[in-house]
């Protein structure tokens, strides 16, 4: 699959989903971050506002990259669980909440609730980057519960969600659980 082919495939899949969707985006490692960017751009271009859960890359890197890819961050909040591991102090700064580490799942849940509430009306989304990184810092059982809580929350409030993962990087049982909880699994 060429770079353009995977983008077309992903965009076709996303376009066929309707207004609200919760998906497991399972990609080949070489397309992973580009797929996340495409999915994010797809949602922000449609005027959706959302939360980017950054477990793999820090906020300052992400915002620079999004600018380069012409992704509008005006209606985007970030929860960054990476920067504190590189010495940043926890707390809220601008459109980002910096939390201690990807193992602080309760804090992630609390801040998700707070930030979603701040967004007001309109279509909202949550994007999780990335599921394999969460596995480094959390037990599978804990992540199953966490994912279920997030997905229940999204369904209750009619919000969309993207759980971004890399093929072959998560245990089968967790993959199957996540896949069953989501409306669709998109493989690129």
């Amino acid at each position, binding site marked *: 699959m060429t770079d353009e082919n995977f983008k077309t495939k992903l965009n076709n899949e996303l376009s066929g989903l309707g207004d609200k969707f919760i998906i497991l985006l399972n990609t080949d490692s070489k397309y992973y971050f580009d797929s996340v960017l495409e999915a994010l751009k797809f949602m922000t271009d449609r005027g959706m506002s959302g939360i980017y859960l950054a477990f793999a890359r820090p906020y300052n890197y992400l915002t620079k990259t999004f600018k380069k890819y012409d992704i509008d961050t005006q209606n985007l909040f970030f929860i960054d669980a990476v920067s504190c591991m590189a010495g940043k102090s926890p707390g809220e700064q601008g459109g980002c909440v910096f939390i201690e580490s990807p193992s602080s799942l309760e804090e992630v849940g609390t801040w998700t609730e707070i930030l979603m509430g701040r967004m007001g009306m309109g279509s909202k989304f949550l994007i999780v980057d990335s599921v394999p990184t969460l596995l480094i810092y959390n037990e599978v059982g804990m992540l199953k519960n966490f994912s279920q809580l997030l997905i229940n929350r999204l369904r209750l409030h009619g919000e969309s969600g993207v759980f971004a993962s890399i093929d072959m990087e998560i245990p089968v049982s967790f*993959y199957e659980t996540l896949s069953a909880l989501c409306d669709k699994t998109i493989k690129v």
Partner: protein
Amino acid sequence: MKQKDKNILLAEDSSDDVELIKRKFRYRDIEGRLIIARDGEEALNYLYRKKKYSDREKFPDPDLIILDIRMPKVNGIEVLKAIKSDRILKKIPVVMLTISNLENDIIDSFSNGCEHYVAKSVGFEKFEDTLEPIIKYYLEKNRVTPVSQ
């Protein structure tokens, strides 16, 4: 492959930090084999099997690479660039280590494809707590999810 059969290449010029990581391996049930390169050039020699590292059996590809950013001869970012532009080596996860939390270092590291970034300046305990799960994850990892169809 068992954890003890896995290899980690640590490129680090500070003897203190090498000792710290070695100690972690000894006391925290980490069974992988730690290979030390004292600067960026030695790390590249290992990865490209040059000079004393020419024996592939004796010096296998690492399962994880930990790179200090500030190293003599060739710095960590240059080594990272070489790894991530190599068709085979780019699949190996790389953790960048640094004494700083400088924004440029962080952005350079992620822009060039590192998987993780850990600052030594966060204090000994936090440094250990951050690095240990990363090492264990890559040593214990079984690639078992279904292949994309």
